[in-house]
């Protein structure tokens, strides 16, 4: 849509004015502007598929959790085996139907006037039946809780208000081929270690969102402690160089999804002493199985994934990346002091809480049949590196707020975020996977595609 028919912001500019498509620059103002935030609530969070949790959080009928879709609270509940997502707003006078984070009940009763609803949102009735306090203007079928459209993928619960919009499959597009390697590889599937960590960061959700689109570059500086005193410190105690870790292949998506696939060979060499070139796909995946899986799980991989996917997994498996608009995943191998490797599986959602606040939600996963000792190791390791107290992500949550502050300055708001490090490589030779793929050291393309999709949605009718 052309900028001149676009909705004008208070100062007369349009969303398109804030993005320079030629030079791949975005004005900082996007990270602090309240008007833009309000538009996003409709055009981004009202239109795309949003991650709300995992079905292992609500295993039984009646189980429910309270989550957020943009600024709307929703009830995620299991009813007759199925998962339903209902707007947590009473159709009578707007009271919250539940004020609990989680629970189990067959009937949700609003505490204000007592209207009752099933776990699937159906209106059951109001007290003092003979007085028909819900009136006669609307039928009972019109008085249920507003329902979102729901999809389960690898047990993950996604929902959208865009009832007639694209399917979740279409939304993922080519990226699905890669996500399958993470979420759909095992027979038992992933399960959450527990409810997610939740904390508030005084930053615009996009400061975290644009980074989640595979910003590998920042690791070298912001997380350099990993090499200095952390898991990538050299055995001789010398500082380790993180640069090699940033080589691999990056998958971009026209829908803003992103994955960084990192070469396993170094790790395999270190673990086996053998030359990875001489190992078969199966051998590699038995030596270094995916996070949370054991050697003998290879049969599962073989069953659930295509040979091409297996090949990619043994070569450069996706390890970090994001899902538009506000999801980050990290499925990584963490080197241990004893030379071994412990896997870590985590998903984050960055829920907007106003132009300068976000809620950081961190789920930690294990495979359903990960052995107890390994599972404990994985969870501890993950808690120690990511999320609330994570030594890696502490630095991120302390950085985003500064970007949100600078975005408020009358000069700063016109300063731009730049995405000008551009791949010139293309797919690795013989790469089996689909999509926009580039080889080599991390670049800005994935993040730029993230902004392009943001712009497309924000300027769509």
């Amino acid at each position: 849509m052309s900028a001149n028919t676009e909705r004008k912001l208070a100062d007369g500019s349009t969303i398109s004015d804030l993005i320079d498509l030629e030079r791949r620059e975005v004005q900082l103002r996007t990270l602090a502007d309240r008007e833009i935030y309000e538009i996003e609530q409709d055009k981004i969070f009202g239109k795309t598929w949003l991650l709300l949790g995992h079905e292992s959080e609500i295993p039984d009928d009646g189980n429910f959790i309270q989550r957020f879709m943009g600024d709307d609270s929703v009830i995620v509940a299991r009813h007759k085996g199925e998962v339903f997502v209902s707007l947590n707003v009473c159709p009578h006078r707007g009271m919250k139907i539940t004020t609990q984070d989680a629970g189990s009940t067959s009937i949700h009763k609003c505490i204000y006037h007592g209207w009752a609803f099933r776990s699937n949102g159906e209106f059951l009735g109001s007290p003092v039946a003979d007085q028909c306090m819900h009136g006669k203007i609307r039928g009972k079928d019109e008085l249920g809780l507003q329902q979102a459209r729901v999809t389960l993928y690898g047990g993950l619960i996604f929902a959208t208000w865009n009832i007639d919009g694209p399917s979740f499959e279409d939304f993922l597009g080519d990226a699905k081929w890669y996500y399958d390697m993470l979420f759909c590889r095992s027979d038992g599937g992933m399960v959450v270690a527990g409810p997610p960590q939740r904390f508030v960061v005084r930053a615009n959700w996009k400061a975290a969102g644009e980074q989640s689109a595979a910003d590998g570059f920042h690791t070298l500086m912001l997380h350099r402690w990993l090499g200095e005193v952390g898991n990538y410190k050299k055995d001789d105690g010398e500082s380790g160089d993180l640069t090699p870790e940033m080589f691999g292949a990056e998958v971009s998506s026209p829908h803003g999804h992103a994955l960084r696939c990192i070469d396993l060979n170094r790790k395999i060499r270190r673990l086996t002493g053998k030359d990875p070139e001489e190992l078969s796909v199966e051998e590699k995946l038995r030596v270094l199985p995916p996070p949370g899986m054991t050697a003998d799980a290879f049969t599962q991989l073989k069953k659930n994934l295509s040979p091409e996917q297996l090949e990619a997994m043994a070569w450069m498996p996706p390890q970090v990346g994001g899902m538009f608009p506000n999801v980050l995943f990290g499925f990584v191998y963490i080197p241990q002091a004893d030379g071994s490797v412990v896997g870590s599986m985590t998903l984050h959602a960055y829920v907007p809480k106003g132009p300068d606040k976000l809620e950081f939600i961190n789920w930690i996963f294990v495979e359903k049949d990960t052995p107890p000792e390994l599972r404990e190791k994985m969870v501890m390791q993950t808690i120690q590196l990511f999320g609330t107290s994570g030594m890696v992500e502490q630095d991120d949550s302390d950085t985003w707020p500064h970007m949100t502050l600078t975005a408020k300055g009358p000069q700063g708001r016109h300063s731009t975020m730049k995405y000008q490090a551009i791949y010139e490589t293309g797919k690795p030779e013989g790469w089996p996977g689909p999509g926009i793929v580039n080889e080599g050291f991390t670049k800005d393309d994935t993040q730029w595609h993230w902004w392009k999709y943001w712009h497309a949605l924000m300027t769509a009718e």
Partner: protein
Amino acid sequence: MTTANEPVNFFEQCADEIAIGSDVYNQALGFYYAEARMLDNLRYMDWVETLTQDIKYNVPLRQTRLVKDNEASIIYSMRHMHEDYRSLMGRALRLSGNSAWAEDPASRTKRFVSNVQVFETATPGEYAALSYLLITRNRFDDDHFDLIPCERRDILRLQDGVLKLAQRDIILDQVLLGTPNLAIFL
């Protein structure tokens, strides 16, 4: 959920309460005041000295639940921190390095200790201590303070006449933590 919600065995460990004003009680107070100053003054490696090698250190999650499900409001299956001696040492090392940006520049904090109660345990020389802690945290030029009120459920162990921290569970009061990270020790 797949992990059973680990039982809080702390209160089972509390035997007779030790009199306020008794030597052990005052020693415990001394331990907490000294600890607060170490942490508020960024003396992380000194703090690690006050831990036992087998320390268990946990910050469980909280959830908003009905009063009838109150015990379910403390979550151990997932935690904000889940630490042992190695990991605490690792955190202290990171903070003592040159690139722990989350705390460099450091937060300006005060750890207000109060409501201390000490109990005998089945193990001689080991004491169970309950205390309240209010942390005020300020960063950069914020004109507000992040507040972290919490209850600490500790096991203190006498080693060569000195009290050391052998176990700590920190019970927070928020389900949605209001401070942007736990880069500091509680």
